[in-house]
């Protein structure tokens, strides 16, 4: 099983929010709305949405990085023109969110939110800064490994995916109940991007590659 279970008591917020009843597994007719997906167009996105380092008058602090990869279906085919949204903490590990009261500095030059559509090869690409790790109150001395949140649509509403991309070699993996909620180690590793020298831009930014594979739609399964 790739996905985490709903109930994962190490992550305390699941205890009162995980559904307790069995899911109903419907047989969807071919014209069911869930087998189609909303579509989005370039005209709906802003010019600066793909580069999180140029959305303010000054440059954000932190390590500039390029994150790119492909969105693929279960057969390895590119998912073209699909909306990819990202959000993340700044280099100090703080989100530009009123609810984040962790005493690390906000960066006036970094919001940490981006959007793009995949190209004909299923590829997305963002320029950003490497997010910092940050503490949370799940348990004593709890820290989240550095991560970028990703939201992807796909070609069927059933494929809708929100997940988190992590960075290689993070010492916090073993202690993080959200990362560890995925039972299978090989599945967990799918969330870790790969440093890539070919993506790295000389004198400019380190590059990381991370592909996203969507689930089969019920018709394919």
């Amino acid at each position, binding site marked *: 099983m790739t*996905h985490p279970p709903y109930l994962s008591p190490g992550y305390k917020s699941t205890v009162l929010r*995980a559904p307790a009843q069995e899911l109903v597994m419907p047989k969807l007719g071919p014209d069911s709305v869930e087998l189609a997906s909303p579509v989005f167009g370039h*005209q709906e996105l802003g010019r600066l949405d793909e580069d999180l380092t140029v959305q303010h008058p000054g440059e954000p602090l932190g390590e500039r990085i390029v994150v790119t990869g492909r969105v693929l279906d*279960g057969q390895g085919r590119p998912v073209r023109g699909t909306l990819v949204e990202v959000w993340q903490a700044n280099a100090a590990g703080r989100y530009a*969110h009123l609810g984040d009261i962790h005493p690390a500095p906000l960066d006036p030059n970094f919001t940490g939110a981006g959007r793009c559509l995949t190209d004909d090869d299923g590829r997305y690409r963002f320029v950003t800064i490497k997010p910092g790790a940050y503490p949370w109150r799940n348990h004593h001395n709890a820290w989240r490994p550095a991560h970028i949140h990703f939201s992807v649509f796909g070609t069927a509403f059933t494929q809708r995916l929100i997940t988190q991309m992590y960075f290689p070699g993070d010492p916090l993996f073993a202690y993080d109940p959200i990362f560890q909620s995925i039972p299978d180690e090989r*599945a967990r*590793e*799918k969330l870790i991007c790969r440093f890539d020298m070919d993506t790295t831009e000389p004198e400019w930014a380190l590059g990381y590659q991370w592909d996203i594979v969507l689930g089969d739609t019920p018709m394919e399964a």
Partner: protein
Amino acid sequence: MTTASHDGAPGPTPSQTVGPFFGYALPYETGPRVVPGWRPDAIDVRGRVLDGAGEPVPDALLEIWQADESGRIPRRPGGIVRDGHDFSGFGRCGTDADGAFWFTTVKPGAVGDGAPCIAVLVFARGLLKPVFTRLYFPEDETAHAADPLLGAVPAERRATLIAAREGERRYRFDIRLQGDRETVFLGF
């Protein structure tokens, strides 16, 4: 060149929680307003997301996806920038401090042999993967009896999928993640 997963393990990319801090990134002002309120066939859908203790979930994100008023599934963009005419079928709304959400949309027409319904997806802190459900309309009782998906739901739980009518063109649809009257969630 790049393989789907770096270690060659098969299967999709695992889900992770949306977390508590998506509020400045994913919701957008026009998200809940799938159609303009001036449309004579606009409907208002409101509800709350509640946890297993009956407490509001103030950090949930809802998405809806639906056919248009004639039962056609939209194939055009416009879910982010609304032009007031083309129907995108997509809406997004974050819950407020009371766990409340709202959408202004149209009632979808029936698609195939199903009763009119809106697909509803909920993400939240504490949900490691989203929950899928469907909103059906209370006035369509006859169509519900023939709806294949409702037919797969145990009779005593079916009511959790049917919105309550709260007035002319107004509906209420509460989502209970757990506990008494837990909403029926769908696995695909």
